[in-house]
C-alpha cells in the first residue's frame, strides 16, 4: 500500500540579495498511512521550507528546483505555488506557529472554520455552522456556541491554536502538516495541544508531519523522526531508536546539548562552531567542520543518506563509531 505522503529528492532554491542558495537539498521523506513523522532541526536547517514546499506555500523568493511530492500515490505539482483547491484535493492541511498571524483578524472564528465546508463542500449556511460547531467541540474549545462569534484576538494563545487546528480539519485532510505549532505556547498548553493532536490521530487516523526544534516534543508525538541539517536529512528512523541511539554525530550532539527536567546538575555540551553559510557550503558532509569524529574522507565528496539498518538511515560515513553509545564529544551528561 502506498505511503500517505512521499517526498522524493526535493530541492528548493531561495534567492537572497541576488544570490541563490539551496534551502532544501535532495530531501526524501515517507509518511505511512496514519503515521506521524517528526522533522527536527535548528534554525536554518530547512525544515520549515520543506513543509511549505509540500504544501505549496513557498515564499516568493523560493522555487522548487527538483524532486516530487506524492499524496496517496498521486503526484502533486511541486512547482512553487498551488491553489487552495489543489491542496484540498490532495487532502493536505497545515497549521503554523503563530495563530494570530495565520487567522484572519476580521473574521469571526466560527466563520473561518465554516468557510471551507460552505464554499467548497457546498453545505448550506446552517449545515456549515453545525459542522463548524462540531469541529470547535472536537478540538476542545469550551462553550463553542459562544466562541463561534469571537474574533481571534479575543482568544488566548491555546484557544487560537485549537481554532487553527479546527480550520485545518474543516478541509477534511488526510495529512496535517504542523510547523512548530507549540513552540510559542506555554508548556501546559503545549501538552494540551499535543494531546489533542494525538487524540485526532487515534480517532481519525490523521497523518501528521510535525516540524520542531524540540527533540523531546517530537519524541512524544512522532513514530518516526528525520533530523535535518543545512538543508539535508542526516538521519531517519523510529523515534525511540534515533533519540536513544543516534547514528549521526549531529543528532548525537543535539541530544548532548539538550537539558532534561528530570536530572539536576547536567553538563550540556554545546556544539562548537556555527551552521554553515548557505552560500558557501563546506565540501563533502555539511557537518564535518563541527564534527567531533570527522575524518579526512568526510570532506572528500558528497555523503549520501544510506540505509544502515531496517528502517534506519544516516548520512554519515562513520556512523558505526556511534553504535556503542554517545558521541565521544567530551564528558557525557547524566
Amino acid at each position: 500500500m502506498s505511503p500517505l505522503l512521499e517526498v522524493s529528492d526535493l530541492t528548493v532554491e531561495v534567492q537572497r540579495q541576488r544570490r541563490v542558495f539551496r534551502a532544501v537539498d535532495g530531501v526524501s521523506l515517507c509518511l505511512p498511512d496514519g503515521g506521524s513523522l517528526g522533522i527536527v532541526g535548528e534554525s536554518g536547517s530547512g525544515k520549515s521550507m520543506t513543509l511549505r514546499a509540500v504544501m505549496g506555500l513557498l515564499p516568493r523568493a523560493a522555487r522548487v528546483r527538483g524532486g516530487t511530492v506524492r499524496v496517496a500515490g498521486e503526484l502533486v505539482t511541486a512547482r512553487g505555488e498551488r491553489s487552495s483547491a489543489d491542496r484540498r484535493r490532495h487532502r493536505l492541511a497545515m497549521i503554523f506557529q503563530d495563530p494570530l498571524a495565520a487567522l484572519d483578524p476580521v473574521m469571526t472564528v466560527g466563520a473561518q472554520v465554516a468557510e471551507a465546508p460552505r464554499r467548497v463542500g457546498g453545505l448550506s449556511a446552517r449545515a456549515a455552522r453545525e459542522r463548524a460547531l462540531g469541529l470547535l467541540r472536537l478540538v476542545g474549545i469550551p462553550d463553542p456556541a459562544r466562541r463561534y462569534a469571537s474574533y481571534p484576538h479575543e482568544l488566548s494563545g491555546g484557544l487560537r491554536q485549537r481554532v487553527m487546528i479546527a480550520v485545518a480539519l474543516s478541509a477534511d485532510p488526510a495529512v496535517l502538516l504542523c510547523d512548530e505549532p507549540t513552540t510559542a505556547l506555554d508548556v501546559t498548553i503545549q501538552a494540551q495541544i499535543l494531546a489533542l493532536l494525538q487524540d485526532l490521530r487515534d480517532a481519525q487516523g490523521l497523518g501528521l508531519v510535525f516540524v520542531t526544534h524540540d527533540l523531546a516534543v517530537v519524541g512524544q508525538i512522532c513514530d518516526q523522526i528525520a533530523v535535518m541539517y543545512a538543508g539535508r536529512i542526516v538521519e531517519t528512523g523510529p523515534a525511540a531508536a534515533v533519540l536513544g541511539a543516534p547514528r549521526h554525530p549531529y543528532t548525537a550532539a543535539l541530544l548532548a546539548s539538550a537539558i532534561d527536567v528530570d536530572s539536576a546538575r547536567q553538563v550540556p555540551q554545546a556544539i562548537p562552531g556555527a551552521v554553515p553559510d548557505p552560500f558557501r557550503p563546506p565540501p563533502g558532509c555539511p557537518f564535518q567542520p563541527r564534527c567531533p569524529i570527522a575524518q579526512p574522507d568526510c570532506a572528500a565528496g558528497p555523503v549520501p543518506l544510506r540505509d544502515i539498518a531496517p528502517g534506519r538511515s544516516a548520512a554519515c560515513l562513520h556512523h558505526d563509531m556511534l553504535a556503542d553509545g554517545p558521541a565521544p564529544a567530551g564528558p557525557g551528561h547524566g
Partner: protein
Amino acid sequence: MADPRLEATDLMVSFPLPGGRALRAVDGVTFRVGAGQILGLVGESGCGKTTAARCMAGLLTPQSGAVRLDGVELGARRSTAQRRAIQMIFQDPYSSLNPRLTVRRMLRELLAVHQLVPRAAMEERCQELMSLVGLPAAALGGLPGQFSGGQRQRIAIARALATEPRVLIADEPVSSLDVSVQATILRLFADLRDRLGLTMIIISHNLAVVRQLSDQVAVMYLGRVVEEGAAGELFGSVRHPYARALLAAAPRLRQRGVARPDLLGEPPSPVDLPSGCRFHPRCPQAADICLTEDPLPRPTRSGSTHIVACHFGADPG
C-alpha cells in the same frame, strides 16, 4: 538564611485599566536570594514573573512592598550605586542591544559613567569582559547586527557584568536561542556564579533550565508564588498541584507518548480572578474550602524552607 543578598517583600504591582479596574500583575510576592545563590523563578505567561523581575531591577515601581539589597531598602528612585548593583539581561537578544553602538562604545560608556576604571585601562577591561563571556576581543569593534542570537546574548551579559553588579537578573535568557546554543549560555551562568560569586535570578518558563541552574526555585501563578524551596527538595517532592502539572507537562527525551498533566482548561484572565484559591477552577483536587479561602503560604513541615500555598500542600499532622 543570614541577611539575604536580594529580598522582595510583599511586592504588589498593578496596572490601571480603562473602566477603573486594575490588573494586578504581581500580587504580594515575597522571596529571598542568598549571596552567591541562584533563584529560579518559574511560571507561564501572565504569572507576573517578568513584572516582578523588572521591579527588582528597578525598571518598574511597585505600588506597595519593598525590594531590599543586602538589607537596605531600595526606594522608587535609586542611586547610581544601587542601579549598578542589580543588572538585568533581557529575553530578546535582537532588541536588547542598541543597534547603533559598537560593543566597545557601549562598554566604555558604562565604565566611564561609573568611573570603574581609568581611561588607560579601559581597553584591557573591555577585553577581559569579552573573554569572561567567551567572545574574541575582535568582537569589540562590531555592531549588534553582525552577531548571532547567542553571541548577542553574551554581549548583553558582558554589558551587565561591566558595572560589576552584585545581582544579575536574567529574564528568559535562552528562550530565543537554538537548543545547541542554549547550553553555552547556561554553562556561562553557572560559571559566573562559581567564579565571580554572583547572585542571580533566572526567570524561565522552562523547568529544565531552572533545574539546571537554580539553588532555590519559586513557582508563580497569576501574580503569586505558589511554591518555593530548595531546588532538590522542590523537584523531589512537588506539593502544589500547579507545580506538579508544570513538571508533568515538561517534555522529556525519554518519554514516548504525550504527557497529559492533571490540569483543566485555560488560565483565567488576570483581571477576573477566581475566588478563594486562584488555581481552583483548574485544580484536579479542588475541594469546597478552595473556593472560599485563599490559602496562605505555609512550610510543608515545621521548620522547612519548602513553602507551598495550598490547603493540601503541607504534610498532614
